[in-house]
């Protein structure tokens, strides 16, 4: 009752150099199990980390691939030959730009401009033509989009698209280096396009002065080879991811907070997507935005330039893309770390049985009020007081009405600007100060914009049981705007 097992050349060193081995009859699974227990070294070449047959290992019984028989349950009868057959695959790094399109012509001016690229054998003329042929969409012309756009333009990417409907503000200039003092107050699109044209007049720029939504994302993305995600909020980040997965496009991801940044390339065809990494958004308010938490101005420069690098690598097909790897950067420690990411077979959009087949309502998905202004109107769903009312109360004397005003911002924010009548208890420490507060007093809570203080009001009412608590609508920003224009805003 014996069978013959034929071993392919690559695996012979693990079975004593033999071309053929004699085994016992059984099913394919049984024969392979017996074989790997006799030759344990063979096992890892046949099976992957999950114990499944590697995708490029084929098993034949006689002349038939067992996939077309009964798979692992295929019987191997007496006298039969079981062959282990590798199929050999591989290839250069994936490229989003089709090879046949390398028809772009470089003029003598362009050859002079890109000469430092052209003498790199990895890029050379063919790579530079791919860059010229390529189109890259930047979602956001802010901290990440600014340096990415400038380097992509300088590198000679033929077509840059930018989605942004914001206006340049002085507080942007600490990091958004594509804009400058001369463009404060102008639309970011106009400011960015002006700078790009100055860097490289050969670049064509298309602007989309509208918020990215589930209605326009697929239409806008369709014209681009690579999408660079420079967004600062979760609904848009999930939207960018899902649109890229649905269109099969690579998403060059970056995010920043305070002193730390992340970058990766999400390309569902070749690896995990953003949802494989973060299946669910964090609860609203848990992760503060850069406007609330601050950001080191040079940080988006580092991350945005990494994004530009990855986009250029994808287009030219050189090097190892950040697919399946999450790069973490800590500016204070000055350290890079790398996490391996796996594609989640249960991923709702890029997994084996996707449940998300079209773009959804991302504000609802992320649990944030929709961005059409309802957030301010709804007032976070807590009792509120306006800054005008607050001014009157302060002028009348807070003690006289048994009222206390709490500032729940951080001490360093207090140093920038504060109300003299307020008492500083940072949001994270409120629990330790509950004994100092009285149910009998009226408690007014403020922060920078009114978001954090609304959380504190909710906590005091719902969890602690206070009744007379109100949120100062719009926070200290509203105070600066409506009451005291001399107060610095940040």
């Amino acid at each position: 009752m014996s069978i013959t097992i034929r071993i392919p050349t690559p695996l012979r060193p693990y079975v004593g150099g033999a071309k053929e081995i004699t085994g016992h009859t059984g099913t394919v699974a049984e024969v392979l199990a017996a074989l790997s227990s006799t030759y344990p070294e063979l096992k890892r070449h046949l099976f992957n980390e999950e114990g499944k047959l590697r995708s490029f290992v084929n098993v034949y019984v006689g002349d038939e691939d067992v996939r077309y028989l009964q798979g692992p349950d295929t019987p191997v009868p007496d006298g039969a030959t079981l062959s282990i057959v590798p199929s050999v695959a591989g290839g250069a790094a994936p490229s989003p730009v089709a090879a046949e399109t390398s028809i772009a012509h470089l003029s003598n001016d362009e050859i002079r401009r890109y000469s430092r690229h052209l003498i790199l054998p990895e890029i050379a003329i063919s790579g530079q033509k791919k860059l010229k042929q390529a189109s890259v969409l930047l979602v956001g012309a802010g901290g990440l989009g600014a340096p990415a756009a400038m380097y992509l333009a300088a590198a000679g990417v033929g077509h840059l698209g930018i989605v942004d409907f914001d206006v340049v503000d002085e507080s942007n200039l600490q990091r958004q280096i594509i804009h400058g003092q001369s463009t404060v107050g102008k639309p970011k699109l106009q400011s960015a396009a002006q700078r790009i044209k100055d860097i490289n007049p050969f670049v064509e720029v298309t602007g989309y002065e509208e918020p990215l939504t589930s209605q326009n994302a697929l239409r806008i993305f369709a014209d681009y080879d690579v999408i660079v995600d420079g967004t600062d909020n979760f609904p848009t980040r999930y939207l960018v991811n899902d649109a890229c997965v649905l269109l099969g496009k690579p998403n060059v991801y970056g995010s920043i907070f305070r002193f730390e940044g992340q970058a990766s390339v999400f390309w569902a065809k070749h690896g995990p997507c953003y949802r494989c990494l973060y299946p669910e958004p964090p609860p609203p308010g848990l992760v503060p935005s850069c406007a609330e938490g601050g950001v080191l101005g040079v940080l988006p420069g580092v991350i945005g330039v990494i994004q530009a690098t990855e986009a250029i690598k994808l287009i030219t097909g050189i090097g190892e893309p950040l697919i399946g790897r999450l790069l973490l950067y800590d500016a204070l420690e000055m350290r890079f770390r790398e996490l391996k990411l796996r594609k989640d077979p249960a991923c709702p959009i890029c997994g084996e049985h996707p449940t998300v087949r079209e773009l959804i309502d991302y504000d609802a998905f992320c649990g944030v009020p929709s961005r059409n202004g309802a957030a301010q109107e709804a007032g976070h769903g807590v009792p509120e007081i306006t800054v005008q009312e607050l001014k009157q109360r302060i002028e009348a004397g807070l003690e006289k009405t048994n009222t206390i005003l709490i500032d729940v911002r951080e001490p360093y924010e207090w140093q920038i600007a504060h109300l003299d009548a307020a008492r500083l208890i940072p949001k994270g420490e409120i629990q330790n100060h509950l004994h100092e507060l009285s149910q009998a007093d009226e408690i007014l809570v403020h922060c920078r914009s009114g978001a954090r203080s609304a959380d504190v009001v909710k906590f005091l009412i719902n969890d602690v049981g206070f009744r007379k608590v109100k949120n100062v609508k719009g926070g200290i920003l509203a105070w600066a705007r409506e009451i005291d224009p001399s107060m610095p805003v940040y």
Partner: protein
Amino acid sequence: MLTIPQALFEKMTRHLEAGYPYEACGILIGEVDDPLQPRDRRVRDVILVANAWDEVNERESRHNRYLISPDEYVKADREASKRGLDIVGVFHSHPDHPSQPSEMDRSQAWPGISYVIVSVRDGKATTAQSWLLRNERDAFEEESLIISH
């Protein structure tokens, strides 16, 4: 070390150039010095194989993917056995890319055979390098590629 006679090397590169801008591939048959610890591989023939990638995957990616189907492998193995030879390696092109293995090459590779990669730029073969996957499967090591006359 992989030794390949000049005439066979040219047969291989012509096949890869003809396949441009797609990846092209094939199998190297020959002899090894020691089946337990092969160090020297001598190529005796080159078997040209059609890139089967588009049969199983989307056609558009054939410019940066290759696949030697198991059927082709079995055929080459039989042909080699008949002549008292073995499969000693495989080769493929990287159109407009360097002749270094990609992460894709590594994750799908086998130890014990040579992987010859030829960079084909604008339809012309430029550099050729031969690589061996480490037993740990974690990386390729370059081996010397000798073209004999």
